[in-house]
């Protein structure tokens, strides 16, 4: 079994830099772990949706009665 965690963390750090964010080396593992959990949440949301059957979000910024 290949441990690809370091590789993924490295890729994550590069993504962060590309987005203009600075992550100190000593914080990288912790923040990457939280990022991985967030990505699981995005997959959970996507898994519960059907591409054509759910409505797109409606803007909620009209001041009139709903």
């Amino acid at each position: 079994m290949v441990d690809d965690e370091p590789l993924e963390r490295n890729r994550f750090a590069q993504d962060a830099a590309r987005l203009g964010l600075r992550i100190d080396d000593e914080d990288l593992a912790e923040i990457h772990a939280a990022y991985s959990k967030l990505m699981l949440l995005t997959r959970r949301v996507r898994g519960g949706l059907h591409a054509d059957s759910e409505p797109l979000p409606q803007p909620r910024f009209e001041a009139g009665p709903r």
Partner: protein
Amino acid sequence: MTPPLTIAAARAALDTGRICARDLLQQSIDRFATWESHVHAFVTPTLEAARHEADAVDVDMAAGRHRGPLHGIPIAIKDIIDAQGVRTTCHSWLRQAHVPSQDATVVARLKQGGAVLLGKLATHEFAFGGPSFDLPFPPARNPWDVSRFTGGSSSGAGAAVAAGVALGALGTDTGGSIRQPAALCGVAGLKPTYGLVSRAGVFPLAWSLDHVGPLAWTAEDCALILNVVAGHDRSDATSHAASVSDFTAQLGRNLRGLRLGVPRAWFLGSVTTEVADATEAALRRFAELGAQVVDVPVAPLADWHASLAIILLAEAFAVHAEDLRTHPSTYGARFRDRVMLGAFLSARDYLDAQRSRLVLTAGLNATLRDVDALVFPAAPGPATRLEANPKWGIVDSAFITGPGNLAGLPSLSVCAGYSAEGLPLGLQIMGRSFDDAGVLALGDAYERATDWRARRPRLALA
């Protein structure tokens, strides 16, 4: 004369001349002197200005000018809400010098109503990410045990009301930030229906989830505050245009015939035994009051939380993107590290979360057509030790308060008793959209049917 401690009692005492506004304020100032160095509820107290305001109230009342339920009542405000001439720090190094030139709409309404403003209250940094120890102010501590967390992010509001320093407070709630501190500090806190209370002049955390609402000792007091601050505001584009009702109108109603739903899937196995027992006892009490209590099916809390976390982090990052890129070290580590995650979410992630939110909300609204309200815990357990609050709750654990924010439904936390260690436990009541008055009436009925409101925190130092 000491007793007031609630807005309703203070109102009666002021109106009958048993106390004047200056003496009522002095009670708050005395409690501030006792508690503040231990609970750190305030970042900017404005007690001298409050004395002038109280004197003006006494002049008004002597002349027969009455300005409503909060006239002369000491109220404090979470420090992400603007008050003209008083710094709004958002509990952050980034905003130390920010002094707003005008009031948030809710503060203007408090002032028009003659409330006496005690100052600005502690929060988590920008209402997200605490408790932190690397900020310009210490985190608030819980009056029931000052080694404990208050809940957040309206942390100072929970502490100030529990300690009796403020008779009411304004907080904000994006994922539970009114209801969690209300639960852990043993007070009442209402996240109103989305659009009912203006957010103009309130620093955003996540626009589509943010709500402003009251914390006070009782549900009745929350209704009195809501009567002053609720209502349409043209300067908040999400503000609802309909006229508002009297939120005290349903207090004291008979509960016979009401149907209360219990969404057990949201808390079975995920709350402490004490919270589970307190919830069951509360349900029995509602049944004794005449309500019909039925279990209702709901979508898993984890589904709600996935949408909440994505939407909250994406919107919060949008607010802070430039500052996070240009001077990240000016933020506290907890806030910075958490909100930074929002940068990695795609437009598709965000839109899918909003789509999921609509599906979940439609299901919940369908459930609420069958019952009048839902009753369930407001927090999974009593307050933890301050240092024990986890940093990554936003991705690790589902918030039982989250559905209220996503669905925009009125959700109230009231005290449901105490743990063996004497720490408060919270009960949540969620109602139909714009049935804030009904939710408050249920909370009020429960409070009157129990004796939890008779107990107050005492300052016990190790």
